[in-house]
């Protein structure tokens, strides 16, 4: 079978970086092809080249046997390549039907034929086995439905090559299953589908073929049936032994049991948000919070950071009992909080790494005592070294860094304020395995130095890897606290699911 799409010798440079170097990539009709690689490997750049958002510096793209060169997304679409991005690129204020057809509305006598548009969308959605009302406003649909609508649009625009850029990152398991159902339907109809995801399991569940990139270079193309997950990860991260070693459990000091308690809550709670809970975090101890989405993880953390006010119970930080009224008060008591949504709540993308790092420290000093530039640079450099931030340039814009490195910058900012309790809400979400391992290792080091850490993550394995103690949440209440000695994911899952068929 001939490939429908083949790219050869692709090269793309940005000032100072070679993003893609002699990369080859091909896709076959009726196949799901996974594009794999760590953050910064060049996946996004390759997709943008393919969809016409970037122009290549060298190389050839041929579609259906003839050479093509796209001036923009529109040309790529017209040639038969459609993309569905991670953040849904549709208009929330328009109806589902309009979102599918806008720009290509059926017309009669020069005016938009609304009835035909609704009927055709209904038919299209039915063909994809989706029960979505085409008249409904898109913004009122769940993210999953919006994503499916985006796919429906892409399919209807051009039925040859469909690019799915991390479509599953904000979906739950049921929604992923629906999405995969649609992808399989399309594959069986002969479409070539490019699938990008960080979830190795999902990639193996859906793909027929995989291409791995590393540092802008092609590592190889594999058939899904001929490669194991471990080999795939090895191909992606490359630094074989060194990094795989780091994937092993970081050495947790077992004896935090005697250290003084830094943060202690007694029946702290807030009506409607989280039931009263009692929790101790010792100096040098990592406490993991495990629980499903919506179990109250975020709510608990917000009480400890003063983002919400507790209406019952007490909280002791250090030696004194406190009533936190704002995050500022929490910061003054030595609490630092890395929020879950890096982009919205944490980093300023248009500022440099140095500026982002000194931000919180500067805020604490007040505007009247500016940090000297030289001191800022020293601080930035020391954290770049310590946390291995790449590129190691204090003047790089944070917006240009990969997800893992952005997370490290955020961490550096809070470490600079020398917190005594560090709260991390999903610090490794959406970042690649190598960076994940580095951040986990860093958490272990910080605890070793005596910092108290509260670690929130949806991934049980990860929680177990870094924590000394695990607190389990269910239905907005802390239901169990267990020392992490010989705990397995199964045991924690059992606690999370207790009361149901276990």
């Amino acid at each position, binding site marked *: 079978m001939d490939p429908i799409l083949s790219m050869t010798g692709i090269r793309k440079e940005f000032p100072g970086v070679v993003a893609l170097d002699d990369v080859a990539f091909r896709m076959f009709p009726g196949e799901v092809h996974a594009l794999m690689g760590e953050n910064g490997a060049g996946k996004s750049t390759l997709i943008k080249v393919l969809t016409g958002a970037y122009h290549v510096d060298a190389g050839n793209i041929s579609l259906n046997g003839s050479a093509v060169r796209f001036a923009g997304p529109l040309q790529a679409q017209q040639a038969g390549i459609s993309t569905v991005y991670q953040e849904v690129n549709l208009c929330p204020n328009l109806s589902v039907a309009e979102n599918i057809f806008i720009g290509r509305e059926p017309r009669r006598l020069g005016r938009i034929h609304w009835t035909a548009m609704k009927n055709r969308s209904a038919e299209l959605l039915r063909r994809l086995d*989706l029960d979505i009302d085409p008249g409904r406003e898109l913004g009122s649909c769940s993210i*999953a439905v919006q994503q499916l609508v985006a796919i429906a649009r892409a399919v209807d625009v051009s039925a040859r090559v469909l690019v799915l850029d991390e479509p599953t990152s904000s979906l739950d398991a049921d929604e992923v299953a629906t999405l995969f159902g649609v992808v399989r339907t399309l594959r069986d109809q002969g479409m070539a589908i490019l699938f990008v995801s960080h979830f190795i399991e999902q990639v193996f569940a*859906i793909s027929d073929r995989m291409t791995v990139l590393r540092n802008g270079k092609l590592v190889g193309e594999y058939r899904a049936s001929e490669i194991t997950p471990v080999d795939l990860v090895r191909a992606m991260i490359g630094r074989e032994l060194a990094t795989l070693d780091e994937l092993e459990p970081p050495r947790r000091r077992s004896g935090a049991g005697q250290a003084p308690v830094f943060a202690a809550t007694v029946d702290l709670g807030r009506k409607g948000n989280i039931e009263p809970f009692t929790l101790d975090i010792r100096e040098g101890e990592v406490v993991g919070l495990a629980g499903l989405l919506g179990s109250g993880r975020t709510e608990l953390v917000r009480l400890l950071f003063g983002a919400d006010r507790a209406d019952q119970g007490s909280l002791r930080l250090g030696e004194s009992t406190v009533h936190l009224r704002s995050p500022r008060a929490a910061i003054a008591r030595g609490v630092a909080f890395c929020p879950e949504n890096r982009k919205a709540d944490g980093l300023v993308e248009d500022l440099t790494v140095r500026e982002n790092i000194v931000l919180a420290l500067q805020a604490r000093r007040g505007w009247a005592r500016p940090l000297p530039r030289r001191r800022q640079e020293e601080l930035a450099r020391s954290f770049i070294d310590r946390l291995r931030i790449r590129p190691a340039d204090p003047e790089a814009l944070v917006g240009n860094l990969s997800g893992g490195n952005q997370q490290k910058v955020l961490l550096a900012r809070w470490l600079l304020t020398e917190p005594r309790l560090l709260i991390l809400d999903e610090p490794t979400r959406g970042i690649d395995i190598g960076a994940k391992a580095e951040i986990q290792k860093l958490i272990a080091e910080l605890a070793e130095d005596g910092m108290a850490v509260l670690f929130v993550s949806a991934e049980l394995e990860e929680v177990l890897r870094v924590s000394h103690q695990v607190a389990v949440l269910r239905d907005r209440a802390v239901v169990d606290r267990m020392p992490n000695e010989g705990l397995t994911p199964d045991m924690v899952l059992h606690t999370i699911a207790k009361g149901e068929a276990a």
Partner: protein
Amino acid sequence: MSTPTTSPGTEAASRRGTTPGQRRSRLSPLDPRYLPIAATVAILLAAYVFGVGRYDAFSDGQVLLNILVDNAFLLVVAVGMTFVILTGGIDLSVGSVVALATVMCAVLTEQAGLPAVLVIPIVLATGALLGLGMGSVIHYFEIQPFVVTLAGMFLARGLAYTLSTESISMDDGVFTAIAQTPVPLPGGLHLSISATIAVCVVLVAAYLLHYTRLGRTVYAIGGNKRSAFLMGLPVARTRVTVYTISGFCAALGGVLLTFYTLSGNSLNAVGLELDAIAAVVIGGTVLMGGFGFVLGTVLGVFVLGLIQTLIIFEGTLSSWWTRIAIGVMLLLFILLQRLIVWRAR
């Protein structure tokens, strides 16, 4: 690893599509975003009933028609503004463009002696051209519409002053004829030609917005500009077009104002842009763009006109109370929009 096409997940999607909560919201009598426009209708009715109850002459149908006659130019300007605001933009230059248009009409007919059939197209083209220029600067140089149209506001007002600093009264035959010919309606009622033109503008605008790709692209851009671009919609062309439309409508509004006053004055229509914005917002169009109707704008203009009329009927109140009423209402409408956004979350 692959399983047959009909995975259990599709059933999950089906269930999700019809959960009770979503059903209810879809079948609820009123989408919360129609609330402002419903409020506008309510205020309009209340004000009218109040007027009819209080003043005998108020029940005459001509009172309502006169609101249209007196505000025809504002209506046309506000329709243009609706296009701009729907894309999430703003056009502050319209008041000055109206003034420039009136001065151009007067200078070109009275002083240069050109025939009206030539003057009017020139004036309209000038307005469109100004809009085109501002739209291009806004889009291609990525500058906030507020700043660009603020510059346009000074520019147009300045141009008007360079043409004439004094009020020029007109006695050109065509202008006087259009100004004074009534358009008879059944029941002894009548409209002016200007008001008829304004009604036509409304109809054309409603058609454009609802039934053409240009119109739908306007809404798409207001909903999410980036998405609109990625969906392959002509964002650049459309953004420039809405400012051109607004410039054209402002110039047309100026011509209608010239019919109304039969004079050109560079002091005309100071602050008119704000009346137009107020009318659009009171008419339920969301300032962030993406939601609203031309019909709402018509209602907004009527609310402004009706308040004015009531205050005139009252006789003892200073006409500046109109301003206070508009201010209070505008604030209420913005707050209402905010509440709706919060509830939607």
